[in-house]
Each structure stands twice: as C-alpha cells, then as structure tokens.
C-alpha cells in the first residue's frame, strides 16, 4: 500500500503537553495545577441565553462571518475596552475559538518560505500552524531576566528578508508576561520599519493585573493596517467549551480568511454566538469579579513561592505563574515528573511551550484557594526534600 500520509503533518511532533497528560491520566488522585482554562462556570445569564436560543429553534447556520448583531456588539466592546476601531461587517470574522483565527491568518498570509517570528515560551499552536501553512517558524527565545517580555534588540536580531509575520502572544501563556505601552512602542517602530505584519493573540487581554488597562498593539498609529487581532470568549468569560473567538484585521486579509472559513468550517457554532451576545453586552461585572479573584490567587502563589525561596518573576497577566526550578539541577520535565510521582501534584514543564521554557514550570491558578493551598503545601515539602538531597 502507498503511504497514506502527508509528509508535512507526519513530521510535526505532537504537542509536548500530551506526553505529560498521559502520565497524569493514570493518577486520578493527583492535584492538578495543570490546566489552561478557567475554573469558573460560564456566567449563568450566558448559559440561560443559549438555552433560550435553542428553545426558540435558532439552530441554523449563521452567515459565514458570524451573527451581525454579535459582531456589532464586539466592535463596540473593542472600542470601549481597547480603543480599537473595527468595522464589524468587513473587518471581523467569528471563529471556532481563537485557535481557528490563528490558523486562518497564517494560511491567508503566508507563501512557502515566509518566516514567522514566534516569541517563546508561548502557546503551542503558532509553530505547527505556521508549518501547515507552508511558512517557516523562527523562535525568539525570551529571557526570564526581562520578565519574558519581547525586547526590541531581540526582535531586530531575528528579522531577515524573508520575515513576514511577528506573533505577539501577550498576555502570555505560559509565562503570564504582559507587554505594556512602553514595551510595545519600540516594537511597533521596528515592525513598521521592516514592513512586517503582526498576529496579536490577545485572548487573555481581560486578565491583566498591572492596574492599567491592557494595551493592544493594534491600537498604535499605523498598526491597524498590518495587524491581525485575535480574541475570544474562552478565557475572559470562562467559555472554553463554547469554541468561540474572533479575528479582526484589514478587510483584504479578512476577506481571504472568510474564504477559508466558509469552505472549511462554514460558521462558528450558532448557539455559542447567540449566548455570546449576552456575554459581550452584559457581563463586564462578571469578568471583573473573576479577574479580581485571579489576582488574589496570583498574589497568594507569589507569596507562597517567596516563602519557599523559589525564584519567580512577577507575572501580570493570564492565570499562570512561571517559577524557575533551575536551582535544583534537573530539567523541567524531570522536575515535573518527580513532583507528580512523589507528591501527586501536576504542573506543566516549561519546555512544553518551547525550548526556552527549560528551567521553568507553569503553574496555573485557575483553581480554588483550597486546591492551591494543598498543592503548594506539597510543593513546599518537595523542594525542601530536594534541597536536602542536594546538600
């Protein structure tokens, strides 16, 4: 028989997190701090709206780009929250989670050999989606000493004639790093100077704890025309399973993305779209409440780690902290595997998010205080034992 498989997809490694997932799956009693999704339930009014839409029989396709009513609400929301100005009709498409937007943007923009700059550690899909679109991923390893923010000199050094897109994954999963206005300004200058495009994944934009509102790179002068803006409902509104996101950008790019979307997907889930109208219109308070609780837990974890003398920069976004385990003289994977086997606590090795995650682990605080406390007590025991071993 002939080889049934495509060579490009066969050559892509499965997500590094998968291997770890398989070990944890064998340990039902382990306390996990390993998830990348909120612990809160979707606000009831949103769920109620979904039920109502089903009762009303709203079970058909929507237009390819998504419900017009929803897109108008989102445009309003983006203006109100992030000073972004998008035409809901021509510059926006509703997607199946933020992930579909990332995939489509690469497919709509890359030709074979085009390079995509990907600051790492980062979410797992930019690299494979670039390859699947025929592009070449070029990682930019970020440094802990810079709080995992992207520095202009790091960007400048990675640019070649072939560079087409810079991915901006902030607030960041797994590090929790954010890029503030003064961090973004020099990046914007370089992007414009080299005529690059930006794919900004701002799925965690509502979860920022700097005290200042989140700043989008798309809001800088001259950036809207060269930026694809990705966001969605998963993290901000605790709606991961609803699979609903959106992409905004220049209408020529969005038009091509809608073409891919219409042939591959048809439209984002109708029920989710109806529910999302309520989410975007009526849930600012729920979102603020969740943000405040995440922030409390973030402080709690940082303080616990400080008391254990574990090095950790202060992350200001998402719901992750990314402490350094370099002092224990083992790889991130070894640390996580031993922590799991010896103390039954699951955290994720930094290397699951790129090679530059070596030496760190991702701890998620999308958990109740009770859970965090039990897990941190065990981690404390673990590191105390490790330090004794190493003496």
């Amino acid at each position, binding site marked *: 028989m002939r080889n049934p498989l495509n060579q490009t997809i066969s050559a892509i490694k499965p997500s590094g997190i998968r291997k770890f997932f398989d070990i944890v799956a064998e340990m039902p009693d382990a306390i996990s701090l390993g998830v990348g999704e909120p612990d809160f339930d979707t606000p009831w009014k949103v769920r109620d709206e979904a039920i109502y839409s089903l009762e009303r029989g709203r079970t058909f396709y929507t237009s390819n780009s998504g419900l017009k009513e929803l897109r108008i609400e989102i445009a309003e929301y983006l203006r109100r929250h992030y000073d972004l100005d998008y035409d809901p009709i021509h510059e926006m498409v509703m997607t199946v989670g933020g992930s579909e937007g990332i995939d489509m943007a690469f497919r709509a923009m890359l030709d074979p050999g085009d390079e995509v700059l990907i600051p790492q550690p980062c979410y797992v*899909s930019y690299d494979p989606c670039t390859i699947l679109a025929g592009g070449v991923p070029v990682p930019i390893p970020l440094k802990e000493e810079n709080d995992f923010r992207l520095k202009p000199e790091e960007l400048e050094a990675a640019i070649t004639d072939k560079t087409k897109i810079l991915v901006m994954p902030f607030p960041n999963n797994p590090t929790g790093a954010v890029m503030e206005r003064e961090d973004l300004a020099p990046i914007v200058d370089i992007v414009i100077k080299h005529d690059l495009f930006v794919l900004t994944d701002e799925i965690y934009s509502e979860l920022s704890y700097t005290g200042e509102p989140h700043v989008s790179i798309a809001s800088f002068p001259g950036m809207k025309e060269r930026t694809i803006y990705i966001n969605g409902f998963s993290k901000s509104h605790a709606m991961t399973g609803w699979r609903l996101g959106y992409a905004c950008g220049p209408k020529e790019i969005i038009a091509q993305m809608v073409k891919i979307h219409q042939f591959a997907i048809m439209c984002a889930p109708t029920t989710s779209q109806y529910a999302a109208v309520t989410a975007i219109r009526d849930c600012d308070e729920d979102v603020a409440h969740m943000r405040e609780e995440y922030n409390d837990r973030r402080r709690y974890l940082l303080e616990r780690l400080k008391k254990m003398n574990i090095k950790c920069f202060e992350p200001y976004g998402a719901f992750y902290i990314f402490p350094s385990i370099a002092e224990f003289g083992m790889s991130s994977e070894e640390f996580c595997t031993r922590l799991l086997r010896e103390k039954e606590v699951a955290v994720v090795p930094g290397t699951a998010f790129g090679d530059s995650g070596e030496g760190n682990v991702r701890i998620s605080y999308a958990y109740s205080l009770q859970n965090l406390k039990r897990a941190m007590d065990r981690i404390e025991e673990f590191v105390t034992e490790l330090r004794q071993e190493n003496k």
Partner: protein
Amino acid sequence: MREKILNYIEHNSRIDMADLAMLLGSDEVTIMNELEAMEAEHIICGYHTLINWDKTGVDKVSALIEVRVTPQRGMGFDKVAERIYNYPEVNAVYLISGSYDFMVSLEGRTLREVADFVSSKLSPLDSVLSTQTNFVLKKYKDHGTIMAEQHVDEREKVSP
C-alpha cells in the same frame, strides 16, 4: 480592604488568616486588626455555619410567616418587630414593602411546634392583624450556596 475581607469571610469565615493576608497582599496583623475593629463596630455581627439539616438525622421545620400589623403610635414598626424577634425560635425578621409588613423566619422541631408558636404567641400580639404561615418544603440555595450540589471539577487534568 474592608470590603474584600468581608467578601471572603462572608463565604468562608474559617479562612486561614495567613492565607487571607497573602490573597490580599497584606499581613496577618493588619487583617486581625480590621476584623476586631469591624466586630467592635458591629459590622461583623457573628460567625455562623451553613448546615444542610436535611442530611442529618435531626428533625427541623422552618417556615416563613407573612405578618400584617398596625404600627404602634410614636414607635412605628420597630417596637412591634422587637416583640417578635425576642422570641428565640425566631430566626429572622424583615420589614417588607408590599402587601404585608413583616416576614418572619422561624425554625422549630415539628410542624406542631411552629403552629403553636403562631397561634399562641404571634397572633395574639395586640398589633398583629393577620398572619400567613408558609412551610418550607425544600431548601435549594441559602446564603448564596447551592445546598444539593457538590462542585466537581470536570476539566481535563492538563491542557495547554
């Protein structure tokens, strides 16, 4: 700060003070001082436990009683309320807008006990015009807590 402390202890009055301090980015002494001050100011009036009595072997009957009264001259409703709330079997008394005046929440061991209270103590009060007793059949949610439901984390244990 006070509001945040209250929000936490309203839902979990047994929260560890060291944990609370870490959550709020403060220290234990400050939190303890605030708590004591709020107790002194009677902002914090007590620390209670939410119990689902249905799950114990203990029999309890609770009722919500709508009471219509004539307010007493010179003292309004407060004096009447006092005569009602001083009975230990009374859990709560609220002055209510609408078609009646007080909502009285009551707990007894048996139906008979509650009925006796209404007929022999509450109704005979001078200012009470009429009462309507509503027995509670099932408590679904109390103090913001859903009684029946045990929250289970159904997420995958690890995800990107």
